[in-house]
């Protein structure tokens, strides 16, 4: 096992001494991220992957909160991000989701406001009535955005409620307000808060580091993972290419005639690809965090997703390498796959606007799953929400390794 690690580390060292590789691994994704970010600006263009998310709201609530929610979704600040329409009939709204016309339907049930802010005379609020979201499973990213906006709304509500309570308690304690007037005052305070909710910058479109829960819709946050994943495919195939290069340069035969099991040699090469990919992703993530204040989200989730995404990508790199005869073929096939996967995986175009078959095909790319996961993270989700993409990436990697191994055998490695 030790030699496996040593071979992998040697490859990591080598790739970081290869200026051409570094340009494509690190400089290119950065440049493209910045370039695309510049071109798409905020969310005006569709190129940034997310924007104009269609959503339908059914507001059955007669109180202020329902109105505030609708107002918020139709506010100026969110106009680029979401396109909210209103319907009266929930069934019709759900049908629009089923027909893939909208990303989600939000149902504000009757009595929502009253359950949160009880009307005067009713001191204790009853059970809070929940907002309902009917989500379109084919648009996970958009749904994530909608859910985050709603969470933000509910969070503000909670703050307002708690804030209101605290304020009132203080007033009572200081003797300025008689307890019997407290309930009415509470409602008034709450309503003030609810009114200001629609006005307030509940959803920030640009970087907002003030509150952890704040949603960061910096366009770079969508472009950067897409680019990083696309150039991860470069690293995977390039590092796989080194296996064939080593064969041609004689270092692979030399390894095979050293007292090192061929499984360890192959394992070491794969480990090297993996290490290079992880290093690349982490450098891109850390650098973009430091340079552009980009928020990738929960560090643990990011790390887990990186480890899984690189695993999937490495699988592809090994399959390409196993099927190719010459290093040049790997390079050629690698760049075609890099671009195809980049497009298929949603690095350039939001997959949700693509035909169903494209969305289906995208599932074979580590890019799509990775982007899915990174979107979840960027929107504030944690490791717990990454089960699906991580599992998919690991299964993908294992399946591809199995395919690659069929093509590799000792003899094949040495002389093809």
């Amino acid at each position: 096992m030790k030699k496996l690690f040593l071979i992998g580390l040697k490859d990591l060292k080598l790739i970081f001494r290869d200026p051409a590789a570094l340009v494509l691994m690190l400089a290119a994704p950065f440049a493209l991220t910045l370039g695309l970010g510049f071109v798409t600006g905020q969310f005006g263009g569709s190129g940034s992957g997310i924007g104009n998310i269609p959503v339908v709201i059914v507001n059955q609530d007669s109180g202020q909160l329902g109105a505030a929610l609708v107002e918020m979704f139709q506010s100026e600040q969110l106009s680029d991000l979401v396109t909210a329409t209103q319907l009266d009939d929930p069934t019709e709204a759900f049908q629009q989701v089923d027909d893939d016309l909208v990303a989600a339907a939000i149902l504000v049930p009757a009595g929502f406001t009253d359950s949160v802010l009880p009307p005067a005379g009713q001191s204790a609020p009853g059970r809070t009535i929940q907002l309902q979201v009917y989500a379109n499973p084919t648009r996970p990213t958009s749904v994530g955005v909608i859910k985050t906006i709603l969470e933000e709304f509910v969070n503000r509500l909670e703050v307002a409620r708690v804030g209101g309570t605290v304020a009132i308690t203080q007033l009572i304690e200081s003797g300025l307000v008689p307890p019997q007037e407290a309930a009415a005052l509470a409602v008034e305070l709450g309503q003030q808060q609810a009114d200001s909710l629609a006005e307030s910058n509940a959803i920030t479109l640009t970087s907002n580091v003030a509150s952890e829960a704040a949603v960061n819709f910096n366009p770079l946050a969508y472009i950067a993972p897409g680019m990083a994943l696309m150039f991860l495919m470069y690293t995977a195939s390039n590092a796989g290419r080194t296996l064939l290069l080593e064969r041609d340069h004689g270092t692979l035969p030399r390894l095979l005639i050293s007292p090192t099991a061929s499984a360890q040699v192959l394992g070491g090469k794969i480990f090297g690809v993996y290490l290079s990919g992880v290093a690349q992703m982490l450098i891109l993530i850390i650098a973009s965090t430091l340079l552009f204040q980009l928020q990738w989200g929960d560090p643990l989730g990011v790390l887990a997703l990186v480890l899984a995404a690189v695993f999937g990508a490495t699988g592809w790199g090994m399959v390409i390498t196993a099927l190719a005869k010459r290093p040049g073929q790997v390079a050629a096939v690698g760049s075609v796959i890099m671009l195809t996967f980049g497009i298929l995986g949603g690095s350039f175009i939001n997959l949700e606007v693509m035909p169903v078959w494209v969305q289906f095909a995208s599932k074979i790319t580590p890019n799509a799953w990775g982007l899915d996961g990174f979107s979840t993270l960027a929107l504030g989700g944690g490791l717990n929400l990454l089960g699906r993409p991580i599992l998919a990436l690991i299964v993908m990697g294992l399946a591809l390794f199995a395919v690659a191994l069929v093509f590799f055998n000792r003899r094949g490695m040495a002389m093809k």
Partner: protein
Amino acid sequence: MPTILEVKDLVKKYGDFTAVKGISFNIQEGEIFSLLGPNGAGKTTTISVLSTLYAATSGDATIAGHSVSKDPMAVRKVIGVVPQEIALYEDLTARENLNFWGQMYSLSGKALKDRVEEILEQIGLTDKARDKVKTYSGGMKRRVNIGVGLLHKPSLLFMDEPTVGIDPQSRRAILDSVKDLNRQGMTVLYTTHYMEEAAELSNRVGIIDHGELIALGTQKELTRQVGEMETLVLHVDEMQDVQRLAKAVEALEMVRHAEVSDHSVTAIVPEAEEALAPAVTKANELGIKIRSVDIREPNLEAVFLHLTGRALRD
């Protein structure tokens, strides 16, 4: 001397093409054995099978008692290989290369560190050890390539044309180091298409052509086998009468022919050493001072020519 390598009816095919056609030979411990043959003769293929890179199509070889086909791992620990093509990581320094390859031969810690420095010293690259291999000259790369093969102190060293494409000085250094290693007890299987190298280095030579071992033995045996003569060259001082000396030498019983060239007499004899004493005596009798003497063993080139009807080099 015990046998360290035993090759028996070794055949290696690449697809339909048979590169090695059933060769057999032994190497004794402490020997330098040369495989001499032209391009494409099958030297590298033979080494590749012996070093467990390729499986033999049929036949087998044992190295230090281990079968190459059945126990490759044991064989790999015993042998060192210096491949024909330089097999190094060009973007790593010489020291990094040696470190890495040492680790592949299971060296570690202080033992590895010491051994790497020792090898750097031995190949004369201690000063350049921190430079990337890609900045090296061909000769320097060759030296590192050899150094890697020596790291684990193998008892049998395969050197596949280690002097191809380098300057005469580096070549000289490499040939000398092979002799040094051998003196320290290392057995060497050396392949070359330079007959001078085989002649200088080896105890025994195998001549390989088109995948067949067409001759095998000490140089003397080989040359005798084809009836070649040795050459005795007597160099004399300028003012001396070379013609008279030539006549006198030619008159000796064992000398077949003698001729004058510049300030020397070249005599063709079956055994140069036998003819040396009488020839020197004759010179003394004539009052001719001999400055130096050369004995040229009969040429392996000539043997190859005799056996194949072709010259050794293309």
